[in-house]
């Protein structure tokens, strides 16, 4: 489904990630772990096309999309939930969801999304910027889901959020894995959750992949060794 080959990317002259080879197969959930600042977000931005790589290829569903704009990738079915949520602050919750529809062929906001996150229906006419952090995160996920993406990029969707909403979000991620055809790359720090949802795990350090294994073969100690500061 998605294949990265020898990817090298960064900001301006300084390269943040290099030698990245990564694959996501159909219906797979791939988790990316790693300490703060090792380049996980940079990797996701490169997949989405926000950053253009200096070297290497991004291949999606058999097509080289390395040079395509983010809007093209979105219309090919890649949904993106960025770190920091990036809600449109002066658009209402409902309008935020309508912008989410731009990428797909759907005309209406799927009721399923409101089942996942009932608060979004209740607050549909509030400005996105007036929601709490946790609510914004739910909105960011819902906004990516309304277009029925075939591939989801989730960048630390539970970072800095109160425990009961974290549980809701983790429940939604599991539900998507079990009940839809969507593949996923999930950046996540919580190893227990990773082991419960991932098919395959990559650990990134200093911008390169230093460890990769199928989720059921993971050795906790080895992973912790890369995550500890």
């Amino acid at each position, binding site marked *: 489904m998605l294949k990265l080959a020898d990817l090298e990317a960064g900001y301006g002259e300084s390269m943040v990630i290099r030698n990245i080879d990564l694959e996501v197969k159909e219906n797979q959930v791939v988790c990316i772990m790693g300490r703060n600042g090792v380049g996980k977000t940079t990797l996701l931005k490169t997949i989405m096309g*926000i950053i253009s790589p200096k070297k290497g290829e991004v291949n999606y569903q058999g097509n080289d999309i390395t040079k395509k704009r983010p809007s093209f990738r979105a219309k090919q079915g890649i949904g*993106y939930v960025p770190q920091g949520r*990036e809600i*449109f602050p*002066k*658009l209402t919750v409902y309008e935020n969801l*309508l*912008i989410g529809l*731009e990428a797909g062929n759907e005309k209406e906001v799927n009721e399923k999304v409101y089942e996942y996150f009932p608060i979004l229906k209740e607050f549909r006419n509030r400005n996105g910027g007036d929601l709490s952090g946790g609510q914004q995160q739910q909105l960011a996920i819902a906004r990516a889901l309304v*277009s029925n993406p075939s591939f989801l990029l989730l960048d630390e969707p539970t970072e800095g959020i109160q425990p009961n909403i974290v549980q809701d979000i983790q429940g939604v991620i599991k539900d998507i894995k079990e009940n839809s055809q969507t593949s996923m790359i999930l950046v996540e720090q919580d190893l227990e959750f990773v082991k419960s949802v991932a098919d395959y795990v990559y650990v990134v350090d200093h911008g390169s992949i230093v460890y990769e294994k199928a989720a059921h073969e993971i050795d906790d100690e080895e992973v912790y060794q890369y995550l500890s500061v």
Partner: protein
Amino acid sequence: MTDLMVTLFNGLSLGSILLLIALGLAITFGLMNVINMAHGELIMIGAYVTFVMQNIFINYIPEQYFDLYFILSIPIAMVVAAAFGMLMEVSLIRYLYKRPLDSLLATWGVSLLLQQLARTIFGAPNVGVKSPSFLEGGVEVGSMYFAYPRLFILGLALVCLAGIYLYFYKTGNGRRVRAVMQNRQMAECLGVSTRKVDLITFAIGSGFAGVAGCALTLLGAIGPTIGTNYIIDAFMVVVVGGVGALFGAVAGAFGIGFFNTVFEFWTNASLGKVFIFLLIIAFLQWRPSGLVTTRSRSLD
């Protein structure tokens, strides 16, 4: 009492003229942060379109339909100016979104070019446009006199304002524009073609300059440099209103219009202009980001 009413009406009238010439700029400069020095020439294009329409009607259309030329001129001026705006966006502005200084110089060049083009086609002297008969005269209330063209411009400005509001807040296109201006990168990531949004938005802002040009033919003769007379005023309105706040322009326009009229009433035309400049400078010292402040992050 009458003096007060007349001053009020004149202020309102001047405010509506300022609003009309600044509305397009409130979109291209206020919302998109493009410093388009050729905005005045887009106004000029609207004015000349009206002139050409008038001549077509005089020469080819039966006389009893003459007044229709003006009604038709409004949408046509809008479309022609929007088309010029599109041409500018595609060939020039698109490459300069992140370089305000370059776009200032480049659009200044375009403005000189368009002025010369007008001079070549229509000649250097001003030309007059005959107002349609239904806008001749005015209404008298007691000892006060309200000229129809001024009432018409007031109405037109309000209609344009309502149109812009409906477009930006009630249509899918408008929603996309607002999303792009609030978070360009995220909008692009969700499948919004930001290039298309930029093009359409710039064209719409340019189109409203065309409408303003059409309306200005009611107030006097037009010439190749008509745009330069209005460009400063237009920027002033947008800056006072608050860059990025689309409807700050309304407050800016009527505020400047009102104070300008009052100052002119107390002193004279040129001194009034000096006072209004001083007032604006003082105001911007006090509120550097204008009356209505919403930060536009269009070009982050």
